[in-house]
């Protein structure tokens, strides 16, 4: 039997570690599970950063609060990847540059969408979906599975 049989390289997992034990920005993922798309905003200088931080990238304050981001946006550019998509993703892999508000434009995956279906100017909305659960060492050799989610967008 191989020494790595049955082992899963969690630190090489493609999804981020989301639990309170592993990251200080765990509220992002907790909020995501409730359908909220959030980030941190600085109470001292007012800078809203994305992705969320533990230190304000503008004034370096740690006095941050969680704020909601728009759940809908407008498509500016569409890309359709026909070959060579990373493992875990299906062909075609569709991405779009999505304007959420005047401060934030994201380049993100658009799920549940066929080739040629998504056009510039379309409205898209946030979609939260389950991803591989995280195996974490428990007591007496037990492995506990932690639920995880991530986000993409789909046609509104």
């Amino acid at each position, binding site marked *: 039997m191989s020494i790595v049989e049955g082992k899963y390289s969690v630190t090489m997992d*493609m999804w981020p570690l989301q639990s309170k034990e592993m990251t200080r920005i765990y509220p992002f993922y907790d909020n995501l599970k409730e359908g909220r798309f959030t980030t941190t905003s600085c109470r001292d200088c007012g800078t809203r950063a994305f*992705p969320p931080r533990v230190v304000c990238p503008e004034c370096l304050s740690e006095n941050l609060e969680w704020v909601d981001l728009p759940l809908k946006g407008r498509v500016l550019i569409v*890309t*359709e990847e*026909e070959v*060579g998509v*990373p493992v875990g993703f299906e062909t075609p892999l569709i*991405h779009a540059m999505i304007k959420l508000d005047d401060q934030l434009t994201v*380049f993100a*995956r658009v799920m549940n969408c066929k080739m040629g279906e998504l056009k510039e100017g379309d409205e898209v909305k946030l979609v939260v979906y389950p991803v591989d659960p995280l195996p974490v060492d428990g007591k007496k050799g037990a492995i506990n599975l932690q639920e995880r989610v991530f986000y993409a967008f789909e046609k509104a």
Partner: protein
Amino acid sequence: MRNVCVVAGGQSVWGMRQASERDMFQEAGKAAFAENPAITNKDVDGLIVGSAYTERCSFQTHLAPVVAESLGIKPVNICCRVELLCATGSSGIILADAMIRSGKADVVMVIGGEKLFTPQRWEVNYSELASVDHDWDGTQGLGLPPPVFSAVAQEHMKLYGTTEEQLAMVSVKNRRNGLNNKKGQYQEAITLEQAMNARAIVRPMKLFDCCPVTDGAAAIILAAEEKAKYLTDKPLVYIRGTGQATLHNMSANMANWSTWESLKIAAKQAYAKAGVTAKDVNVAQTHDCFTISEIIETEDLGFCEKGEGGPFVQAGQSDFGGQVPINTDGGLLSCGHPFGATGIRQGIEIMHQLRGDAVRQVEGARIGLTHNLSGFIAAHTVLIYGRDLA
């Protein structure tokens, strides 16, 4: 401050290699010493090793001492690894230049490479998820760069009227330039029709608009001018100026997709230190990871006006006989792109061009430029080399 010269350079064969990471580092180091037999492994007092995927694809951290031992180099001034993904090699050269200039080392080898063809082909694509912002862009399936450059190309086409034919002309030119490059991944010319009719990767990027996955390594040796004068009989090539800038990392924080502001800052720094302008550059190796990249680089490096990159390649201005021949050894599109080695390969080609002994020589070249971009178009690195000191 001392002056810094490039005194030797060489590379392994690049492509899909039946060789390990450390095999190729040895081949590249040997090639650099063989290129200028006046210099031996005993002359090197500093070693800077570049590799982006060494942990992921070869399960080896602490790579610099492995390479030093493999090549019989016993560095007493510096022995470490640098990493800036696609600009790893040129970052190593910038650091070596600074160390020599300041007197911290006299003769430094900068050597970089990657082993990317692993037994399970999916792994390298999976590792790419760590090349962008893993938690925020990798999770959107954005590890592989074609979607990003498709968006860049679409925006450039919309704003400036750049055409798919003009994109294809970049790959036709660079494949032609790589024809006699025995160390490159491809020695095969393509026609405009082939490029235009190739299968789509992410439209408008088709097969020949994208550089391939590549195994390979390259090594370059820099020396303080006074050392260089007795280490080599070849014409001296000076590092005249360097610049590197980063304004963002994650896609959401990239302010302008079709004008690369950090490239302009890095170029301005390098030109200012070198005391030259874009008009003085006789030959350039720029980061043609995709055809659209070279078009934008010709603009943002100042070789032509903004938006004129398409007409510039169409008019042959980036070809031999034009204003500034670009990617004279084939570039990434023909040579391939082992991340840690690319910036070094560019430096070696400029060394040959300025000495006058390149395979495809730009007649009378005195000033050369290299440019690397890395990550989500996040960091730009520019170096200016000169046959003369000023």
